[in-house]
C-alpha cells in the first residue's frame, strides 16, 4: 500500500527542512522516496497543514513500580477522570498518573509516538517493560538506574578499574533491556539506607566512602566508552534544595567535559536570595549550558494543579514528604539496588515557591540558546501530567500569553523572575527540534524523529493556529509506522509499538563476580534476573528494536 501525504508544510530539522512544502510517501510502514510511476492507494491532502514527525518524550515516568504505587495511592484523582472503553479502545483512568492504555491513547492524541521511562531499576525492570508492554501505539524504552546499587559501590571501594565497571554497566543494560543509563541522587539513595539524610556532591557515603562526584565520573565514562549514544542521564544531588544551583554548576564542572544529560534541571536551579531565601538560578544554569557543549538538559517544567511526584530519590522524597498534598506518601528501599518515593503535590500559582518554580523552568527554556541540547519535559507526572504539553508549548511560543499568565502568579514571585523581560518566542522548527529530531538524536534512535526516506513513518499533521495550545492538543492526523491512528485528536485505530534497546558487548567473565554476589547477598539467582527477549515478545504484541552503538559499523 502506498500512501501519499500531499502538499504539507514540513518541519523536519533532522533533514534541515524548516517549513517547506513537500510531499511524503509511505510504504510498508516507512517513509520512501517518491516512487517512479507507482499507483497511490491513499492520498491525504495536507495543503496548508503543518507536518512534523511523531513527537518523542525522552523523559516520562510511564513504566515501573513507583508509577503503580502512585496509581494505587490516588483513587480519588482517577475518579475525576474516568475513561470509557470504546469498540477500539480500553477503559482506564487519566489525569495525574493515567492507566497504561490511556497513557498510549492520550500521548498519541497529542501527536506523540514514543516515550522513554527514565528510571528503570534493574530489579524492577520486568515490571517497567510489562507496564510499557500494555501502553498501546507508542514506542518505548528505558534508562536503567545505577549509582546507588551496592554492587557498583563495592566495586568503587575495591578500586576496580574502569574496564570492570564498563562490563558491569553493559551487562546491566543488556540484562534489563535498556537504551540508556540513569543515575539518581548519585549514591544518595544508598546513603539514605545508612540513615544519611543529605549527600552533597563531595560528601562521602558513610559506609563506602564514595562521593557522588566519583560515581558520576565513573558512570559517565562507562556510558561513553561502551558507546551508548544517550549520555549518562543524571538526576543530580540535592533535588529541590534552595541553593542547589551551585551543586548543579559544580556537577557540570566536575564531569570534566564528558557527555552528560542533566534531567529536570528546573528542580536543580534554586538560589537562596530574597526575603524567602529562594530564588532563580536559571540564568547561571543557562549560561553554563550554553558554554559547555557536552551538556544536554531537559527542563522538568512545573505547571499549576494537582499531580503526584514519583522518583527513585527516596532520600529527597522523604525530606519533601512534609509538602505532600493530599497528605499521604510512600518511600521504599529496594533490593540493595535503589529506592523510590511517591509524594502527591499540588502546585499552586499563589504559593511563592511554586510560582517561582514555574518561572524558573520557563526562564531556562528561554535562556538556553541551542534547542538541540534542551528538551521539553514536565518530568511527567512530577512537574505536571504530560497532557499539559500543548499548554507549555504555547507558553514558549507566545510571549503575550506567557506574560498574561505571569501577571496572575504570586506577586513576590513576579518580582523574583526576569521572565517578563525575555522576548524570545520558540519557533515551530525549534519545537520540532526539542520534541522530535533532537530527542531521537540524543537517544540514538537510528530511524525515528525524521521525515526523510528510510525513517519509520511516525508522522503528525497539525492545523496551523496562532493559539499553539489548540494546535498542539488536537492533531489532524497521526501516523504510527504508517498506520493512521489518530484523526482530529481522537484515536481511530491502535497498534503496538516497539521497545528500543541497545545491546552492548561485555566480557562474559563479569558474570563470575556477579553470580557470587547474587548467591551470597541478593534474593534471586543470577539466571532468573536477566530478562530474555521472549519476555517482551512472547505475547505476540511486543517487539525489540536494537540500535547501534557509537563505533558500530553501520
Amino acid at each position, binding site marked *: 500500500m502506498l500512501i501519499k501525504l500531499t502538499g504539507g508544510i514540513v518541519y523536519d530539522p533532522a533533514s534541515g527542512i524548516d517549513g517547506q512544502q513537500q510531499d511524503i510517501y509511505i510504504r510498508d510502514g516507512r517513509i520512501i522516496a517518491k516512487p517512479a510511476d507507482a499507483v497511490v492507494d491513499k492520498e491525504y491532502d495536507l495543503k496548508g497543514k503543518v507536518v512534523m514527525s511523531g513527537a518523542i518524550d525522552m523523559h516520562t515516568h510511564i513504566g515501573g*513500580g513507583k*508509577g*503503580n504505587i502512585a*496509581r*494505587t*495511592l490516588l*483513587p480519588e484523582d*482517577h475518579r475525576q477522570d*474516568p*475513561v*470509557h*472503553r470504546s469498540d477500539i479502545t*480500553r*477503559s*482506564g*483512568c487519566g489525569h495525574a498518573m493515567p*492507566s*497504561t*492504555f490511556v497513557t498510549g491513547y492520550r500521548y498519541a492524541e497529542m501527536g506523540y509516538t514514543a516515550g522513554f521511562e527514565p528510571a528503570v*531499576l534493574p*530489579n*524492577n525492570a*520486568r*515490571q517497567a517493560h*510489562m*507496564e510499557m508492554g*500494555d501502553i498501546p501505539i507508542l514506542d518505548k524504552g528505558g534508562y536503567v538506574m545505577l549509582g546507588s546499587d*551496592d554492587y557498583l559501590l*563495592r566495586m568503587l571501594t575495591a578500586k576496580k578499574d574502569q574496564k570492570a565497571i564498563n562490563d558491569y554497566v553493559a551487562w546491566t543494560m543488556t540484562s534489563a533491556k535498556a537504551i540508556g543509563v540513569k543515575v539518581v541522587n548519585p549514591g544518595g539513595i544508598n546513603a*539514605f*539506607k545508612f*540513615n544519611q*539524610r543529605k549527600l552533597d556532591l563531595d560528601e562521602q557515603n558513610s*559506609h563506602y566512602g564514595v562521593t557522588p562526584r566519583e560515581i558520576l565520573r565513573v558512570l559517565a565514562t562507562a556510558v561513553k566508552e561502551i558507546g551508548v549514544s544517550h549520555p549518562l542521564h543524571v538526576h543530580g544531588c540535592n533535588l529541590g534544595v534552595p541553593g542547589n544551583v551551585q551543586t548543579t554548576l559544580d556537577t557540570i564542572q566536575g564531569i570534566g567535559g564528558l557527555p552528560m544529560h542533566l534531567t529536570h534541571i528546573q528542580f536543580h536551579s534554586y538560589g537562596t536570595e530574597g526575603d524567602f531565601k529562594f530564588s532563580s538560578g536559571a540564568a547561571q544554569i543557562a549560561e553554563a549550558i550554553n558554554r559547555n557543549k557536552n551538556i544536554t538538559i531537559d527542563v522538568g517544567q512545573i505547571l499549576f494543579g494537582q499531580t503526584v511526584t514519583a522518583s527513585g530519590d527516596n532520600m529527597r522524597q*522523604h525530606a519533601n514528604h512534609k509538602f*505532600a498534598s493530599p*497528605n*499521604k*506518601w*510512600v*518511600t*521504599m*528501599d*529496594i*533490593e*540493595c*539496588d535503589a529506592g523510590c518515593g*511517591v509524594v502527591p503535590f499540588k502546585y499552586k500559582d499563589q504559593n511563592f515557591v511554586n510560582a517561582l518554580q514555574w518561572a524558573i523552568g520557563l526562564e531556562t527554556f528561554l535562556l538556553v540558546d541551542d534547542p538541540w541540547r534542551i528538551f521539553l519535559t514536565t518530568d511527567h507526572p512530577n512537574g505536571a501530567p504530560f497532557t499539559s504539553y500543548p499548554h507549555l508549548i504555547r507558553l514558549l511560543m507566545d510571549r503575550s500569553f506567557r506574560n498574561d499568565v505571569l501577571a496572575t502568579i504570586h506577586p513576590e514571585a513576579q518580582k523574583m523572575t526576569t521572565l517578563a523581560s525575555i522576548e524570545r518566542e520558540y519557533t515551530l522548527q525549534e519545537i520540532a527540534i526539542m520534541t522530535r529530531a533532537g530527542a531521537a538524536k540524543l537517544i540514538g534512535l537510528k530511524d525515528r524523529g525524521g521525515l526523510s526516506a528510510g525513517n519509520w513513518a511516525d508522522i503528525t499533521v497539525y492545523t496551523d493556529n496562532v493559539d499553539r495550545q489548540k494546535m498542539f492538543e488536537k492533531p489532524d492526523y497521526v501516523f504510527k509506522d504508517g498506520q493512521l491512528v489518530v484523526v482530529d485528536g481522537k484515536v481511530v485505530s491502535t497498534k503496538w509499538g516497539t521497545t528500543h534497546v541497545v545491546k552492548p558487548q561485555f566480557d562474559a567473565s563479569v558474570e563470575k563476580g556477579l553470580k557470587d554476589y547474587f548467591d551470597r*547477598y*541478593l*534474593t*534471586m*539467582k543470577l*539466571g*532468573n534476573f536477566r*530478562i*530474555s527477549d*521472549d*519476555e517482551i515478545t512472547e*505475547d505476540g504484541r511486543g517487539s525489540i528494536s536494537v540500535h547501534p552503538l557509537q563505533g558500530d559499523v553501520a
Partner: protein
Amino acid sequence: MTEITEVPSPFCGIGTDDLTIKVDGVLLKVIENGCAVNTPAFEQPITDTHARVSGQEVSLEVAVAKAAELLKDTKLPLIGGCATDVNGMRGLLALADKAGAVIDNMNFTGARNNFLALQDSGWMNTTLAEVKNRCDLLLVVGTDVEAFAPRFFERYLWNKESMFLDDTSSREVIYLGRAPSGTASTSPTGKAAQVLPCAIEDLPEVIAVLRALVKKQPIRVTSVAGIAVADLQAIADKLLAATYGVVTWGAGALAFRQAELTVQTLSEMIKDINNQNTRCSGLPLAGKEGDQTANQVCGWTTGYPARTRFSSGYPEYDPFLNETKVLLENGEVDALVWVQAFNVNAVPPETSLPTIVVGRSGMTFTKEPDVFIPVGTPGIDHAGHAYRMDNVVAIRLKKLRDSGLPSTAEVLNAIEHAL
C-alpha cells in the same frame, strides 16, 4: 526424566527460586529446597485434561463457546479468584472490560487492610534483599511468619553472610500478638525470639500504646491487653536504637474489624521512627497465588487494585461493595467466572448462578460448574510472571513440563474473542 534447577515458585510469596525439581513426564518431584507450601503445590498431579460442559467432556472450543454464551446476555458477571500470572490477569481484565464485569481477587479482604492504610496515609517499606543485608531487628505483628512462608527466616534472616552485619545470628526477632508455630525464628546459635502474646483482637490497643511510646508520649497504665507497658517500652527503645529495624505483618492475619487502622498505626509509627533520625521500614507479607500480581496488573490497567467493576464502561473501585461475598449475598451479579490457576483447594463459592471455572487441573467441586476449563499452572505448565510479596520483584516463572494444558491467558482471550 530431567532435573530442573533454580526453579522459582509462585506459591510462597517470598520469591524462592532455588528449587530443584525432577520431571518425569508430567510428574514433578521437588528434590531440593522444597517446603510445606511449595512442595505439595508443585507436586499436585494433573487429573483433568479436558474441559467439561455440564459435567460432560468437550473440546476446548466447545467449552469456550459455552462460556461466551453464558456471559453474553449478563448484566453484571463477577470474575472472582483472580489467581493467575501477569498474562492471565491481562486476559482477565480484557474480558472484564468487554463484558462489563466486576472483578475481585480472592485475598482482597485481607489485602484491603493494607490498601486502606496506604490510600489514606501511605507508608515506608522495604524489600527482601534489604532485610537480608541490613535488618538487625525484626518485629513481627500478629502473624505466624513461618506458617505463611516456611523458608522466610532461612533465606532472609539466618543467611550465612550479609553485606552490613558481621553476624546475622545476632539479629533480634520479637513477636507481638501471636506466637510462632515453630522454631524457624530461633537463630542458628539458639537464641529464641522474644514473644509477647495477646489476643489478636487486642492488637489495636497494644499497637496504639507502642506508637505512643515511640513518640515519647506518657502512658499511665502499667499493662495493656496483658502485656506490661514496660515490655512495650523496651520494644520502642529497641526500634529507636536499631540500625535498620523492620516491622512485618500479614494483612490477612490481622483478622479483626477495621484492622486497616492497625496497619495505619504501624505505618505511622515507622514514619515517626524515621522522623527521629533512625531508619525503620515496613514489610507487609503477601504475594500468595497471584494476589500481588492481580493488584499490580489491575493497578496499571485501571489505576485501581483488583476489586473493581467495569459495568459503567469504565473502572470503578470499591473495596467494600465489590466484594464477592457481598455481591453474591445481595444477588447483584448474574454469573460467576472463577479463575484460579494455582490452588486446587481454592474452589468457587457455592452459588446457583451460571458458573464458569477456569481452574487448575485437579480441582474438585461439590456442585459441578456449568463450564470447567482446566488450565496449566504458571511456573509449571507454562512460563509467566508473578509478583512476590514486596511488590517490586516480578519473578520469571519457568515452564517445567509439556502437559498440553492451555494457559489462563489463552482461555480468557478465547472467551473474550467469542463474546
